């Protein structure tokens, strides 16, 4: 990998130059406390030390709402409405979110690529940035705290600038075209980089092994935590819609008043909604709020075979943005026995009867 240094005084010029590679998006403050990736006009508005954005970067590729095609019923025809995507640059993506995109790629690019996702992914330049974890972050436990690939450039903060890792041919070209802005990396820079990484590693709230989480979740399907926590859940779906790896969508056909033409649209969906599990015949395979609540925990902690990682990348959004104050991490730690109330005696006796196949409400009555 190629490494270069971007001195601090060149940061804004560099950002300005990035605009030559496409429309520039970066984290900005959108309200008192929250951040989001927005189009950048004035590069001085870019936030280098944001905690997390309310919308994950997947929004650039898997759009929150998009028209898929237009149709005519009489002509039995449809026409894809995929617009010409202009190149764009997403600056300031944290490591966990880069892993989030890699997870999205395993779903939307491999085998049967989603063309709407693919065309945007091909046109998007990704520039990562280092960060210091806050109390909500746990990417260290998910092994997504350091991205080896999945970016064009990655900027690591130094006291007097940035140590830049070049991760793709596009990254090389960006550096080469602006070579006057960069310097060589010195021994001192390497020391500072190590120092930052050490401080960062220590700043995480938890340092523990989550290796058995997946199994414990399956074994503890009837743990009282599910009732207690799903009871206070609003089923608002914010945990899904802020998650960098939630990928479910809902489609709807909208017919025009001519009763002939129309279009199909898709939008992000949430497994916390009743209709997510609703199928023909009015059956629902996740009929209760508890079933739906548990589903997200099982989904996020299952393994993505291609990457060997869990679907959750530890960004902390689902806890940080939960209006009911539900802590995903605390609940997982409860299941793992790392918080109190992990193994109530009355439950452990019955363990053999529990687990997925025995969970109530999944297989119907009297089972």
């Amino acid at each position, binding site marked *: 990998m190629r490494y270069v240094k971007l001195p601090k005084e060149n940061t804004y010029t560099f950002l300005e130059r990035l605009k030559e590679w496409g429309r520039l998006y970066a984290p900005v403050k959108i309200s008192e406390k929250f951040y989001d990736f927005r189009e950048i006009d004035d590069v001085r508005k870019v936030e280098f030390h944001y905690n997390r954005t309310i919308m994950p970067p997947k929004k650039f590729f898997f759009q929150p709402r998009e028209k898929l095609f237009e149709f005519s019923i009489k002509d039995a025809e449809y026409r894809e409405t995929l617009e010409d995507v202009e190149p764009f640059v997403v600056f300031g993506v944290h490591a966990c979110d880069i892993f989030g995109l890699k997870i999205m790629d395993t779903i939307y690019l491999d085998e049967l690529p989603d063309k709407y996702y693919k065309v945007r992914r091909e046109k998007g330049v990704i520039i990562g940035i280092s960060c210091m974890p806050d109390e909500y972050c746990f990417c260290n436990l998910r092994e997504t705290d350091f991205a080896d690939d999945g970016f064009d450039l990655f900027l690591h903060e130094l006291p007097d600038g940035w140590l830049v890792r070049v991760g793709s041919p596009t990254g090389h070209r960006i550096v080469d075209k602006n070579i006057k802005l960069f310097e060589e990396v010195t021994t001192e820079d390497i020391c500072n980089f190590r120092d930052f990484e050490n401080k960062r590693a220590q700043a995480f709230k938890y340092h523990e092994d989550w290796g058995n989480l997946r199994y414990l979740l399956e074994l503890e399907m009837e743990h009282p935590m599910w009732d207690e926590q799903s009871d*206070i859940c609003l089923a608002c779906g914010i945990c899904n819609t802020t998650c960098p790896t939630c990928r479910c969508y809902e489609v709807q056909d*909208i*017919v025009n008043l001519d009763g002939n033409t129309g279009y199909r649209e898709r939008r992000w969906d949430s497994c916390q909604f*009743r209709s997510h599990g609703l199928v023909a015949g009015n059956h629902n395979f996740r009929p209760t709020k508890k079933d739906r609540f548990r589903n997200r925990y099982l989904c996020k902690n299952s393994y993505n075979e291609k990457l060997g990682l869990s679907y959750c990348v530890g960004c902390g959004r689902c806890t940080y943005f939960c209006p009911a104050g539900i802590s995903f991490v605390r609940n997982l730690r409860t299941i793992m026995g790392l918080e109190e109330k992990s193994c109530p005696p009355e439950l452990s006796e019955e363990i053999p009867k529990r687990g997925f196949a025995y969970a109530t409400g999944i297989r119907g009555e009297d089972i």
Partner: protein
Amino acid sequence: MSEKKIRIGFYALTSCYGCQLQFAMMDEILQLIPNAEIVCWYMLERDSKEVEPVDIAFIEGSVSTEEEVELVKEVREKSKIVVAVGACATQGGVQSWTDKPLDELWKTVYGDGKVKFQPRMAKPVEEYIKVDYRLYGCPPEKRDFLYAIGTFLVGSWPEDIDYPVCLECRLRGNTCVLIERGEPCLGPITRAGCDARCPAFNVACIGCRGAIGYDVAWFDSLAKTFKEKGYTKEEIIERMKIFNAHNPKLEEMVNKIFQEVKE
């Protein structure tokens, strides 16, 4: 689609006529004209006839007089599909908010004046007749109207909305006034479809589209969230009731949260 034109009726009960106006002003209505016969819709058709057999009857307004009870029953008998339109028809509207008795309300508005109708407490259309589909909001959304009619025209059935406004805040990239500023936003219990219009202007949702059906409006969880932010039971119920006065679960679920503390 069959060549036969679909017959449409639009009836108004006690209301502000804002629902009809909203739809009558849509340019898309012109597309509908070749496919539809407007049997009754005074705002569009001077020669409207009340109440004739129709394929789709839209009803706006809350049932607020004896005469309107009879009218909705007749509409039901003569229509294949009945669609309740707007907050008044679907939830009884803000006029249902009050707990005061009818006499007192009557006096406040009309004094000793005489009118030609028999008043009743305002109620949603569904309290009197079976409603097949609903268009929510105050005023309702054009998009929902287009979607419903378009879907009916091709002989299919439009989906109901069973998810909250929160989804649309997140799709739209709004901030969250509930988490960030502790405002009593009703987004989590209110049906989506408005594209989170109010929160987009930093105004907490007041719930005009009504609480989500299918028993997935979690008044209790939201009351707990509000309580933790310092709202009293009365404030919470008052706010939730503005557009949900006839919801049978609301008070019971909010009370549950406040009882739990006393124990």
